[in-house]
């Protein structure tokens, strides 16, 4: 699946987008897998309450299942307007 990062999550991890092969069944498990990749990831995912997640471009939550999902995005709370 494609995993996208925005704002400071993108800066902390150091890339905007990557392809990820995963066996994770929900977002929380995917986050655990990503966090184990190294300090940059661990820092980005250190506090989930400071993060939001979108699945296939719809806002979702960390307990949501990943079955059939093609695009996961992680970002801080939005500040539009």
């Amino acid at each position, binding site marked *: 699946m494609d995993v996208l990062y*925005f704002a400071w999550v993108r800066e902390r991890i150091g890339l905007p987008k990557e392809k990820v092969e995963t066996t994770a069944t929900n977002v929380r498990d995917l986050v655990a897998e990503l966090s184990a990749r190294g300090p940059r990831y661990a820092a980005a995912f250190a506090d989930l309450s400071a993060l939001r997640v979108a699945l296939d471009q719809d806002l979702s939550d960390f307990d949501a299942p990943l079955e059939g999902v093609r695009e996961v*995005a992680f970002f801080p709370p939005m500040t*539009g307007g």
Partner: protein
Amino acid sequence: MRIAVQKDAFDLGEESQRFASDVATSGVNAGALVTFTGVVRGSEKGDMVAMEIEHYPGMTERAIETITQEAQQRWSLADALVIHRHGRLVPGEQIMMVATAARHRSDAFEAAEYLMDYLKSRAPFWKKEMTQDGTGNWVEAKDSDEEALTRWD
């Protein structure tokens, strides 16, 4: 309903006039048009030279469409317009506008406020304040922004 997510500046007068003309020729009996314009504000310390706005192409348009459709139904709007810019903007520049048209003004005002509240916290934009020395600070979402949504429950 028209939604535009763009880098370029927009002409407030032209957009307002076009919105008014579209409503007038649509045959809907709208007696109230409200427009709101958001302008990039300088930082309190005065050291901000620009605002960089990042967004999530694809999701941004979808999210704004959902929010606007919701407003359109809830207040039976005759029409609605949302323009939101991204990229690098300097203080004083127009960052976004919404326009609503309804039979009566209370509906047009309320729908515009609803659009603003939801655009702030549910459309995937992120603002970064850039200072003179080239460093930047991501603007943090405020609890009050999230609380503002509860009044529409």
